[in-house]
């Protein structure tokens, strides 16, 4: 018997994106929850194969944009009509038109912050440690190999059955990854 308290998960290597995708479909259908697929590039259709929901990054970006829009108008109103009002050309102190280019840029800037930092937050990046990054074989995940990892912490995990499942999906190489 191996001591699995130190084991992070079972790592299965695949040669092609199609193999990894079929494996993902099988694992999804088997009802696993703590597992992932690692690929050198985003594989088209993998989200469906894994049963992932639509990413939530859009909400972060939307909130950023709404903040930028509001902040932009508030800033211009405060600076040019409230704190330091100067009449230019006999025109009203405030109008939504003249600061529009500035507000437009602020909206884009903060939406972009929302998209990038929202993505990093949802992915819990930057991450200083990950058990997979210690694994020599796993270096192929940024090169030309495709990996499926099923964590030992998954309630459905059992060494023999999970190995069998991955083998039936066409996996040629499998190994345990230590935490």
């Amino acid at each position, binding site marked *: 018997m191996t001591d699995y308290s130190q084991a992070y998960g079972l790592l299965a290597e695949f*040669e*092609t*994106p*199609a*193999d990894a*995708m079929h494996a*993902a479909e099988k694992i999804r259908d088997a009802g696993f929850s703590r597992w*992932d697929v*690692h*690929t*050198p*590039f*985003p*594989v*088209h*259709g*993998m*989200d469906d194969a*894994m049963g*992932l929901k*639509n*990413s939530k*990054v*859009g909400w972060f*970006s939307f909130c950023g944009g709404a903040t930028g829009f509001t902040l932009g108008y508030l800033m*211009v109103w405060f*600076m*040019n009509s409230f*704190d*330091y009002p*100067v009449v*230019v050309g006999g025109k009203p102190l405030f109008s939504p038109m*003249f600061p529009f*280019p*500035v507000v437009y*840029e602020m909206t*884009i*800037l903060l*939406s*972009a*912050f929302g*998209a*990038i930092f*929202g*993505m*990093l937050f*949802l*992915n819990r*990046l*930057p*991450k200083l*440690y*990950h058990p*997979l990054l210690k694994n020599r074989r*796993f*270096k192929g*995940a*940024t*090169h*030309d190999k495709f990996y499926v990892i099923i964590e030992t912490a998954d309630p459905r995990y059992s060494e023999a059955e999970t190995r069998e499942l991955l083998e039936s999906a066409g996996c040629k190489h499998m190994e345990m990854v230590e935490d």
Partner: protein
Amino acid sequence: MSSPTAPTSVKIAAPPREIEREPLVLNNRSLGWISDQIAGIIEGKTPTWWWVTMLISLPVMLMCFTMIGYLISTGVGVWGLNSPIAWGWAIVNFVFWIGIGHAGTLISAVLFLLRQKWRTSINRAAEAMTIFAVMCAGIFPMIHVGRIWFAWWLFPLPNANGPIWPQFRSPLLWDVFAVSTYFTVSALFWYMGLIPDLATIRDRCKGFFGKFFYGLFSLGWTGSNRHWSNYEKAYLLLAGLSTPLVLSVHSIVSFDFAVSQVPGWHTTIFPPYFVAGAIFSGFGMVLTLMIPLRSLFKLEDLLTIRHIELMCKVTLATGSIVGYAYGMEFFIAWYGGNPYEAYAFQNRAFGPYWWAYWIMISCNVISPQFFWFKKLRTNVVVVWILSIFVNIGMWFERFVIVVTSLHRDYIPANWAYYSPTKVDVLTFVGTFGLFMVLFLLFIRFLPLIAISEVKGVTNQADPHHPLGGAKGGHH
């Protein structure tokens, strides 16, 4: 529902060879080959030409800084400005560099939204070019204000004078926001695209420093599909945000001119005409940079003739739009019936700066027309030479717009002729040194082609393609 005996798939004839698209990566290269080839540039020995170019660029860059130091310590009198030409090379150079900086985001954002997969081979270098060009551009508005130590008044920062806040009715302030947003978003977009590639290099690295720094900046990327899912969404959003951004930046730069009352500047055609010109000059610069890199680093299989041809087509299209805008400006100057406007344009083409105008026309309108011919589009030497003409022409366009519109004020007593001084010229030449130093450092230390994105457009990456492992039948 089909019965078990019915045929499972309808046979569709393969498309005829003539309409099949050329692959984006030639010679059926494997996925591993792509990372070996691109990461190999960073891992290999520094080529001699790199050192030679660096040793030329460094003193040129230092010359730029020296000239700026001289300008600050002495005053704007060292430039050729006079009355009425108060905007000279500084603004010309600013618009020139910011225009070049438009191709990167156009390639990474607009072509991404249009699903132009060929962009993957050029977007990384073009984005780097954008960031460095915007840095060069940013120098000029800063130093042209005269008392440079007050340049921070451009930003809405609290100061001890009340505080006095900037006036947001000024298009120059819109420009501050447009350019700084553009720089920030472009830099973030570029960095986000780099994360998976930095992870690739981290995993190949042997040395301590490489492992440390590539590891640090790749943020612990593991290529997890749960991450890719958020990453791709963020990438799509950024592309969607950068598209209105890139169009707005040069529109706002054109407002610096168009919102004023000066004949020759006060035209509604400026925003679209400036944007087309920016894309034109940006693609010109991408071609100028990528054609030598392609052969120096043996990237012919990744940056194929098809890529160059497509870039030539964009150059041709935008160059023709620019030519149309030149014609339309003249038409409106006549049709609008404003004598000052009519004079400004007549003077542009036949006045004392006629030479600048006709250099602009030959370089921007005539030279891209050669790209109608496939034979010329596919000849890299011809393309490279024509791309240089595009760069020259677009600099002259800004010179023509800035200087010819200013040099003849309403009364002849206010007429003058503007010539740059040595300081003007050396500062501008110096910015090329700065640009080249930054670009050379980029190609030495970062992957100049987006590794993961190029992998993604190959057939091997498509799970529904036989090369991607598809067994056929049910897909």
